[in-house]
């Protein structure tokens, strides 16, 4: 199932959190060879994890991490502005309506449906919190995965070669993409809404029930 967890609440799901940071080490250090910091416990964390980001995590039936991504608003420090200014118009992108999505990670053996579920969650966040766009930093080879699940970003630029190749891109809100991604994930709108409500409260229906 999809979990939405701020960093400050990760302690409530310790095993899920631990396996997420381990899987990030596995993906970004071991498989992609990115120069990331990994702790003695095998957890990959960077300075943005200290800024109380919002994580979207696919929790496997056994309680472990199946995939995840991380969100921060572009009003504060974000990777695209700190590192990739040249690809985003020569200066920082700042708006509370544009969030950054980074560390898109899939655990070993996770199938496409997990990637699609994460993108579905991204759409849910964009809808419910009235955002206009996400700006993302991702492994260039992810572009193929995003295309396969029907959620292609608009790539603004890439840097590096081979395994090190990193891209910056934008996602925008479109109802068609949302429907496509939901179908690929095999998750109904009602189920997605229920998971979202579990994290953020409120009614589980897309349209609020006429109550009170």
């Amino acid at each position, binding site marked *: 199932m999809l979990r939405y967890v701020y960093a400050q609440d990760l302690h409530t799901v310790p095993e899920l959190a631990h396996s997420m940071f381990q899987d990030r080490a596995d993906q970004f250090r071991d498989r992609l060879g990115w120069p990331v910091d990994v702790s003695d416990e095998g957890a990959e964390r960077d300075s943005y994890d200290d800024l109380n980001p*919002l994580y979207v995590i696919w929790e496997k039936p056994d309680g472990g991490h199946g995939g995840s991504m991380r969100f921060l608003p572009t009003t504060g420090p974000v990777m695209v502005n700190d590192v990739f200014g040249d690809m985003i118009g020569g200066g920082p992108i*700042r708006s*509370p309506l544009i969030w950054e999505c980074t560390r898109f990670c899939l655990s070993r053996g996770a199938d496409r449906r997990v990637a699609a579920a994460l993108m579905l969650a991204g759409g849910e*966040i964009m809808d419910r919190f009235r955002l206009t*766009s996400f700006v993302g930093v991702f492994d260039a080879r992810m572009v193929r995965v995003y295309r396969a699940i029907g959620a292609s970003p608009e790539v603004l630029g890439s840097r590096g070669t081979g395994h090190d190749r990193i891209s910056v891109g934008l996602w925008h809100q479109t109802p068609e993409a949302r429907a496509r991604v939901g179908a690929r994930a095999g998750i109904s709108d009602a189920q997605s809404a229920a998971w979202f409500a579990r994290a953020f409260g409120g009614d589980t229906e897309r349209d609020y029930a006429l109550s009170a």
Partner: protein
Amino acid sequence: MLDQGSLNGILKDLETATALEGLQIATEALSAHFGVDHVVYHWVDSRGDQYGCGTYSEAWKKRYLDQNYLRVDPVIAGCYQRFHPVDWKQLDWTGKPARAFLAEAIAYGVGNQGYSVPVRGPVGQFALFTVSTNCSDDKWRAFTEDNSRDLILIAHYFNRKALAFEPDRSEEQAQALSPRETDAITLIALGYSRAQVAEALAISEHTLRVYIESARFKLGATNTTHAVARALSRGLIVV
């Protein structure tokens, strides 16, 4: 549709305010503009200092502080150090202290509906911008659908202004436009359509929208016309 002209005027007055009183005046003007009972800006920093302004009654403000409701208020618990906007209906009001607090808040005229936008500033600074009123769920849903994006932006403009008044802070650096944002706003000022601007800059209209959105935020505006006017008056673009 609400009158954007008057909203622009309110935000301009807020931005040029030279004292904290300007924030108070802006909350009153906004509450009239949006037709809601209350507009409140509430600053809570990492040292536990509080500062607030807004349209709540003096009696409720005093009551809130006297009872230290910061510790009970589900809005604070649900928003603190987070960054997504919250409709009060989403919050957990089931606990006994929270229910008692809600009943009292309604008795003091806060309203049964609220929408709060958390704002995270530098070094642990945190603020909440809230609109609240008394109305049906249907009416409230329509109101937040129409206005939430403006409210999110306005919340940040309040905080930007409040930070500028901090004594031990150097004046907030003017929000410079990036080269691409400058290009985009300049072409719009020249009367180009969005499609024409996108074509001239060899970017998609979606990407253009990101640059315009970012420029709008830096300029303290809620719409593009207003953003262009501000960029011109500040000399950030020349046409």
